[in-house]
């Protein structure tokens, strides 16, 4: 039976094997740095990546998946005048999620300090939107959107920004023409007192001016 050779009885070794310090410590350092970077800077790195590589405007049907607690994708690019169907689907098996789009925050004071409740500026203000394929919608707040419904109308609610709140496994399609509101927008989920948002459930939309 052949055996593992520890150096002291190295006499029966088939061939000596050597390895260098440089590669060893170099690689370990690099791996350590990568580890720390992804651990603490995941969202930041994702942002850089997406700003660098995902600049092509998305047209037609754009899927947004909701997970616990993140969106896939986390960055969208539209151009003013594009025709878009935002297909939102909640992939969680346990959690209700929403997708609010806006800029700035409205906050309420609490013992724990001010907590954002919604965006200050609602992207959907005055925007004509066709709502279709709504299944398992907990409630839909229209705010100042000009909605048309195709198929059964989901459970409606009032108060706050435009937001569909989707039950686990639910989905909704929002079809609209990108309004003339160029700039950087945020989207996020404010469910459970902003906790989803803070835990990473947010993303950004770049709206490019019309060509």
């Amino acid at each position, binding site marked *: *039976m*052949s*055996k*593992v*050779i*520890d*150096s*002291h*009885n*190295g*006499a029966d*070794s*088939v*061939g*000596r*094997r*050597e*390895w*260098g310090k440089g*590669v*060893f410590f170099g*690689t*370990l350092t690099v*791996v350590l740095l990568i*580890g720390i970077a*992804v*651990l603490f800077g*995941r969202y930041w790195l994702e942002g850089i990546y997406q700003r660098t590589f995902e600049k092509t405007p998305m047209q037609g049907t754009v*899927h947004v*998946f909701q*997970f*616990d*607690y*993140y969106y*896939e994708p986390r960055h969208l690019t539209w151009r003013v005048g594009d025709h878009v169907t935002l297909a939102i689907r909640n*992939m969680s*098996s*346990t*959690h209700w999620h929403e997708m609010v789009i806006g800029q700035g925050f409205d906050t309420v004071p609490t013992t*724990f*300090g001010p907590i954002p409740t919604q965006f200050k500026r609602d992207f959907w203000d005055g925007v004509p939107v066709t709502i279709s394929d709504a299944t398992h919608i907990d409630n839909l707040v229209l705010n100042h959107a000009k909605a048309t419904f195709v198929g059964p109308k989901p459970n409606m609610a009032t108060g706050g920004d435009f937001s569909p709140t989707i039950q686990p496994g639910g989905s909704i399609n929002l079809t609209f023409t990108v309004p003339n509101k160029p700039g950087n927008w945020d989207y996020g989920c404010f469910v459970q007192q902003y*906790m989803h948002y*803070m*835990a*990473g459930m947010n993303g950004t939309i770049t709206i490019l001016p019309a060509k």
Partner: protein
Amino acid sequence: MSSVVSDMQGARSAHMKVKRMLPPVVRGLLWALIGFLIVNTLVSEVFDRMPYHPYVTRPSVTLGWVAAVIGWLLGVGAWEGFMKPYFGGTADWVVPNDWRKYFMYSIDHKVIGMQYIFSSLGGFLIAGFAAMLMRLELMKDHMWIFNNPGAYLSTVGIHGTVMMFSVGTVALIGGFGNYIVPLMIGANSTAYPRMSGISQWLVPAGIATVVLSPILGQWTTGWRGYEPLAGQDPAGIVFYYLGVFALTTSSLMVSINLTATILFKRAPGLTWNRIPMYAWGMLTVSLLNLIWLPEIQMTFLMGLLSAIIPLPYFSQLGSPLTYMEMFWLFGHPEVYIIVVPAFALWQELLPVMGQKSLFARQWGIIGLVFVMILSGLVWAHHMFTNMRNSQMLPFSFFTEMISIPTGFSFLVAIGTMWKSNLRLNTPTLFILMSLFNFLIGGVTGVLLADPVVNLQAHDTFFVIAHFHYTIIGGMVFSWFAAFYYWLPKFSGRMYNEFWGKIGAIWVFIGFNGVFFQLFLLGLKGMNRWVPVYPSYLQPMNFEISLFGFLLGLGFVFNFLHIAWMWHKGPVVGNNPWHSKTLEWQTSSPPANTNFDPIPQVIGSFYDYSDSKLAVATPYSDKKS
């Protein structure tokens, strides 16, 4: 050093090619990456493809992780050292005799022991850093370091998990156990050296998995991975289950190996009633591991399946409290897994330091064994808030019963010190501190076992104080005693007594400064698992945190001292403590072959009534 190899190869080495290879650890990382990419891609893009899903899904990351760990183990050396010979190939695995041997697969129990010591030290420092972050957060009554409670809770979970499964369960067993036990029982290797070589490399993999879990998402369950709570969490919990699975598998392999080693590899004449106390401790703790680790591994597997498939074991469709029962069925014995080696250390070190025979040795062993037996009968004391009054009584009773065999360990220690000329050096100091701290942990444990108190103190910082007193106070202090005590064995060099004592007193003050106040804080109403708390608790928390940082620095100071003395300390003889146990009857540090010839045991290791050695053919210096 590695020139030894070429010398021995003599003439042959002249026409033998030196093969260049990637450093095994680097190769392991590479193979792990390749394994992950292949399997993850197959699962998420081919077998389990769902349109628009992210590239990494829960099932794909789980299977990808399995492939990565296999790749890591093979790359680190299990391929040449284990698999190839297993399939009948020749092993061309040469372990150079210098620092490199600690960073590759090896079958030498001393090297493996050292690797385990480094791994759990790494875990201790990482998890300790997490503790510092937590204490930093708790300095103020609102959130200021972490930006959401989930991040704080993930940190608590990582701290607890890494501490429990890579330090508490591993440091004294995988580390010192692997190194010392074969030496202590007069053997030249462990029973399953190849398996042992593999098991060590699961530890860094497991620690890395748990530490990197936030990449997948937060988890809020703490070190217990509670279902169905975990079912509400993002995917980070998947890496908790997987990481802990790797760590527990490693401990299980160590236990199998140590049990077999102690049972079958003892030197001639080393009868049952001569087995050294530390070996006894390792044997009992290994049996505990063999009983309880598979149980918890099954529980974690079920939790994992609930998270990735998902199966409804612990949801409303299943049985939500079952996980809790199953967890604590293991969870309580786990505390004894941590503390039994510490008991054994007290009984190992005190006779040597007092040069006096061990008092009531049989009772010491009976104590260890009964702690082991009773530990499985008490789990529900962690769940008093979930049960009927009639169910509390038996669990309260058995829990308080454990203080009896535990008391044996104290009595043996005290009886041994009684009227001995105890050398009050650093290891002794650490042992005394450990006895003191564990006493506080034990007494408050009896209190907590009382339902009336428990229902008040449940999930407050009183509990945190109690278990840190048992774990840090009992086990970590003994761990330091072991470091100082066996340093001359590892290195042939001695630490500095002055700085050693400073280090001991430093951590003792820091430790009691933190954790004694935690009792009071808990009684005042400070809940655990909260980064935000009522402002009247803030001044005390602030001060505790300062002590916390002092403690953290104290640990680092001790490690730096030990590391320094390892290389620069004054050289001492083979047996600086005049101990009779076998590990000191060979050279320090031991040569590659521990004993040549194998010694014959003829007396008791703990009989200091005369200066006769317990071995007939003590170590001869001819080999090194």
